[in-house]
């Protein structure tokens, strides 16, 4: 009788385990599959992608791109989204993860293929440099500051907020003047 109770308890335990889930993982497996989980003590950053400036310069936009598919009605391609910051992540790492996870088109030039010595973002969501006039292209800021150097050179810290913005006027329309080095290097 007592034995039966023991067995009964064991069955109950088994059911409890099954109900609770049996995804038993090794430490490596857990780390690999949960690397981007946002937990309470995880370091995170925020990222948004915005092409709002194009809305005010619609006449300058490449006619082939005058579509909601490329420029959403409110200009927002990606709302502010939180991502886990892995050690030594640069702005580029986060952007790459973001666009892949959200299936947003992005084209870039590798660090060894250009004169920046950094990855250079050519186009996001099919909006490229010069898609909206000769003074247009993608710029990024971290915590409101425009860092003036390449995305793959900017190492992020916990809580940083990255904004990718499309400018149609060398940055003046998004509150930041484009600079000589950027201009010169991009153009060559």
């Amino acid at each position, binding site marked *: *009788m007592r034995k*039966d109770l023991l*067995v*009964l308890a*064991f*069955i109950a335990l*088994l*059911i409890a*385990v*099954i109900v609770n*889930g*049996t*995804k*038993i*993982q090794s430490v490596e*497996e857990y780390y*690999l*599959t949960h*690397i981007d989980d946002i937990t309470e003590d995880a370091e995170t950053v925020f990222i948004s992608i915005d092409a709002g400036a194009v809305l005010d310069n619609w006449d300058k936009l490449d006619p082939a791109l005058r579509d909601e598919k490329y420029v959403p009605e409110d200009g927002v391609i990606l709302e502010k989204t939180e991502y886990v910051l892995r050690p030594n992540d640069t702005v580029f790492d986060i952007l*790459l993860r973001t666009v*892949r*996870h*959200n*299936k947003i088109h992005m084209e870039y*030039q590798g660090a*060894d*293929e*250009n*004169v*920046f*010595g*950094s990855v250079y973002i050519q186009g996001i969501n099919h909006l*490229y*440099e*010069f*898609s909206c006039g*000769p*003074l247009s292209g993608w710029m990024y800021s971290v915590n409101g500051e425009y860092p*003036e*150097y*390449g995305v793959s*050179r900017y190492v992020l810290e916990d809580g940083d907020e990255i904004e990718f913005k499309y400018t149609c006027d*060398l940055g003046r329309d998004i509150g930041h*003047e*484009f*600079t*000589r*080095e*950027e*201009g*010169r*290097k991009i*153009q*060559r």
Partner: protein
Amino acid sequence: MKNKLIALFFGIILIISFVCAPLAVAAQSTDDEHVKKQILETIDGIIEWKKRTMGIASDRPLLNNEFLLNAGDASGDWYPIGIGRSGYPDDYESYLAVIRDVVQKRYQTDELLSDTKATEWHRISLAILAMGGDPVNAGTDSKGNPINLIADGTYNRGYNVSLGKQGINGWIWGLITLDSMRYEIPDDAYYTREDIIVEILRNQLPDGGFSLNGKEADADMTAMAIQALAPYYNSEETYEYKQRATNEHVEKSVREAVDEALDTLSQIQLDSGDFSSWGIANAESTAQVMVALTALGINPLEDERFIKNGNNLLDVILQYAMDDGGFIHSEKFDPENPSALPDESNTMASEQVLYALVALYRYLENFRSLYDFREEMDSALKEKIAELQDAIDDIPNDLTAADRPVVEDLFATYLTIPIEERSYVFNYYKLADAMEALGIPNTSEPIAPNIGINNGGNGTIISFFEEDVNHDKTIFTEADAEAVTSLPDEMTTEHYVEVIKLMERLDRAENKEEFEHLLDDLAAKKEKIKEIEAEIAAINQLIIEHLYPIDEIGIEDKATVEEIIARYEALSEYDQQKIQGIDDVNRALTDINNTIRAYYISGTLAVIAVALSIILVIRARKRKFNKLKQKMLLEDQ
């Protein structure tokens, strides 16, 4: 007596000037020799520095396989342009082979070289010319037609997208490229030279300069605009257009616009002789001004407008030299360009100084200007131009009617010079001014419609150095054959450059027949590399299409994920690096496998639980039965 004295006085003056003139010339020429030697040493130093940064031995070419990986892009093409224009010995042929292949590959895509940047065509065309190639014949496109980079990148660019889509740079570099061989523009072309010239002029700022953002003169952009307009400096044609910045209607000749730009450059030059843009003095800005001055035949070493506190442009540029042979961007830390450190040679500063020094040397040697890739004029014509220039210099400032025949005569000589070469009469403007003062009608033909004379041809290479450039190497050697046979059977994209190089060399070799058997092998290898490239692209596409959002990956995706991993693992280690997001694929597979394992565990546990339950029930029944049995037994008793 008085007359005698005067005669004596003039005699002495004459003697002095006869004696001193050669002395001055001699001093001048030894000075020049010294400067030229210094320029050559500096050029050599820059190339040696660049080699060291890439781990290349001094006696090996800079344009090695690693460098050639960047053929056809902005980080690759400017060193070859500087090298080619100086004739520095290097592997020109290989660069040409690879850049042509890169162009052909990019021509397979819809955007060709670029949807937006015409300057891709310009830079690549100049690089091909510098390496001794022909951009009019840059391979074949997907339909089998010859690729004409000049047509597609300049006068016909407008059929596709505006040459100025990227701004003023597109017009400037378009014109530089168009005049690099004085290309002829066909009648059915989209743009004429005049169209492009006007677009550049329209962008001139009220202060006389040019800039990217259209506010105030930027040294670099002003210099580049001058470089483009230089071949038209001697044209009397005026252009009517609406100035962009002011919306005013303007009528101007190129000479007037360039003179304004030169004034602006002289004004914005710093007291140190430096040029800065956006507030920081830097080597590149000064280098661009040097190229602009030499294009106009203004001596950067002597022209007073560009010497500040005794510093000429060469003095200024050399202040950016480092002991290692390279050049720094700026002596101050430039927050706008943090990759360029004040104490570390910088690749972009070095490459621009390289071609600026090449431009200066070409000027001092009386070679064609930096971006004029045509064959040198014959010596008779050079001589004629030199004499004409000397004679123009002798035109007195205070003209009288007596000077009229001389001036008319000089103008007649000027008109005998072919129109496309007239920009090399650097002081023509003095003649034009004299003619105007004397009321002599200027009947010189407009330059723009008459400057186009060539439909193709290879860029000319002239060597500053004793070693001659062996760019027409036409023998395929045993060592080359050895290089082919030592290529591994298993191709990877790592061998791309080597295969292209050897194929081109063999294809062009005089003794091609001797090694014909190797050509098939090389072609097969090239084909294999193309397949691998396609496979890399396919795997990358597969990952992007099927893996995201990664949270939604489930057991049903197992086959796809395993396929990706299998195809990834089939690649060589080198090619595997070109797959993006393989971490995510592994993560997805782990996740899927964990889920499957969890199902198995749950299943097993469930089976155990059910079995135990059955045992429990059986036991309970047994007990009940036994109880019943016992009860019956008791009752029986």
